[in-house]
């Protein structure tokens, strides 16, 4: 189909078993410019990498099957829904919009994401939310080790358990875990769960369409701010070696 033909249908369908990935992404980018069609259904993704990356419009893209690396990377404003598992770096560097994974996510889900919401209805593997810069990530299952590693802003919500080194070298992001935490990383501490945390969390779970989970059951983890804040007592340690 041409871009013009695309624009005339309600839901554009694209079969990745028959047509090349670059064609899909360029069609999607054309739809971002023209605004038509708004809804897309992608079938037979076959674990291919970089599906629906760099979108910047209010499109709805549904992908029926498992996807490879960097799906919905750099997303802005679009809703991308994956009816399957995804490989490394789903929604990496997302700026806004919504990315929903109905299966499991591999490593570095939502890496460096600045804004928007990433929902993983299954489990997420290691380094979920690494270097998070302001987005929200909600994982209905559990996450592996090094969740929210060096995360700077935003929220990582885990309805199941978290692996070791959770929140290692955390900056100003917040982590909420409902189940067990294997071990906290350097400078990450448990903090009191306040009423505003519970209501924020309730709102986030609602947006993630996770109904069966009680927001009051989570624990809150954040930075102790020992690692990156300047302490005047340590001033001598900062002197130049030649001084």
């Amino acid at each position, binding site marked *: 189909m041409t871009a013009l033909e695309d624009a005339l249908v309600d839901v554009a369908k694209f079969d990745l078993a028959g047509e090349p990935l670059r064609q899909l992404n360029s069609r999607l980018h054309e739809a971002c410019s023209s605004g038509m069609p708004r809804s897309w259904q992608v079938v037979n993704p*076959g*674990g*291919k*990498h970089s599906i629906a990356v760099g979108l910047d419009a209010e499109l709805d893209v549904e992908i029926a*099957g*498992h996807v*490879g*690396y960097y799906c919905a990377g750099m997303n802005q404003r679009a809703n991308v829904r994956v009816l399957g*598992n995804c*490989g*490394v770096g789903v929604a990496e560097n997302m700026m806004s919009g919504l990315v929903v994974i109905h*299966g*499991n996510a*591999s*490593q570095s889900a939502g890496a460096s994401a600045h804004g928007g919401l990433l929902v993983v209805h299954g*489990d997420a*593997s*290691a380094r979920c939310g690494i270097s998070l810069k302001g987005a929200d990530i909600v994982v209905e299952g559990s996450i*592996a*080790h*090094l969740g929210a590693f060096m995360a700077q802003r935003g929220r990582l919500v885990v309805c199941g358990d978290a692996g070791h080194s959770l929140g290692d070298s955390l900056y100003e992001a917040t982590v909420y875990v409902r189940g067990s935490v294997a071990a906290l990383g350097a400078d990450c501490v448990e903090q009191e769960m306040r009423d505003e945390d519970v209501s924020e969390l309730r709102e986030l779970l609602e947006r993630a369409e996770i109904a069966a989970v009680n927001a009051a059951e989570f624990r809150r983890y954040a930075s102790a701010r020992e690692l990156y804040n300047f302490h005047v007592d340590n001033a001598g340690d900062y002197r130049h070696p030649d001084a």
Partner: protein
Amino acid sequence: MCGIVGIFSKSSAIAGQLGSHMSRMLVEMSARGPDSAGAAIYGSPLGAGACRVSMRTEQPGTDWRMLESELAREFGSANTHRSGQAYACLQVAGEPDAVQHWIETHMPELDVMSVGRALEIYKDAVSPRIFVERFELARMSGTHALGHTRMATESRVNPNGSHPFSTGLDLCLVHNGSLSNHNQLRRELQREGISFRTENDSEVAAGYLTWRLRGGSSIEQALEGCLEDLDGFYTFAVGTLDGFAVLRDPIACKPAVIAETDDWVAMASEFRALALLPGAADAQVWEPEGGRVYTWGTTVFT
């Protein structure tokens, strides 16, 4: 970067098409490793006292028929299972150690890549697509198979530096990653009587497993030992006579994904290599945890 794949059949339909499935998985992993490719196939095992020997040579005009008849004269019977210009897999009615010793003594120009009752190894420094055509991989059948596509980091790009590596009977390993203490460990293993053919780090991992198995460890114990004794990053897939195992380093540096149906269980560096298998869309798919040994098989793993 490298690509690794493995498949274990749970049905005769998959076993009959094993080479064909392995071919497509390998070609799909070309982008992860365009330099070399290799595969280990476990066909129907020979009886006790017989062995299958996979060999390759750089010498043009090697007469495999001649070798076959010399082995038949020495051990009573031998036949050519598969052969091409630069490779052959022969089946010999002799004890594996004796057959290997005879070949290495009388035909030093040959590289023996594997010896065992079931295992065959083929590898070459060519792209995965050319590899599967050259060795007619799609025509092979068997219970399980491992494959590797190589992007070289640790040693020369030549057939001997390609995976899979075998340093023991029916044992082989494919590796994605890089080990940093392999020189030290190679010297220690050499003192224990393990021999190596290359400077490759992955061959040291295979040798380490052989050494542990010789010492009475199970494959699971041997792989758990890797967590202590190997320094570096790795995803390993290991084949034994009856099954295969997967291990990732404790921080899960290198990718791996596993999928399972009623008919097969398979692992790969990336899901797209598994997507080609029948029923993959409805398979149970998950990512193996770092530092945990996963095994499939029959008697070896009990």
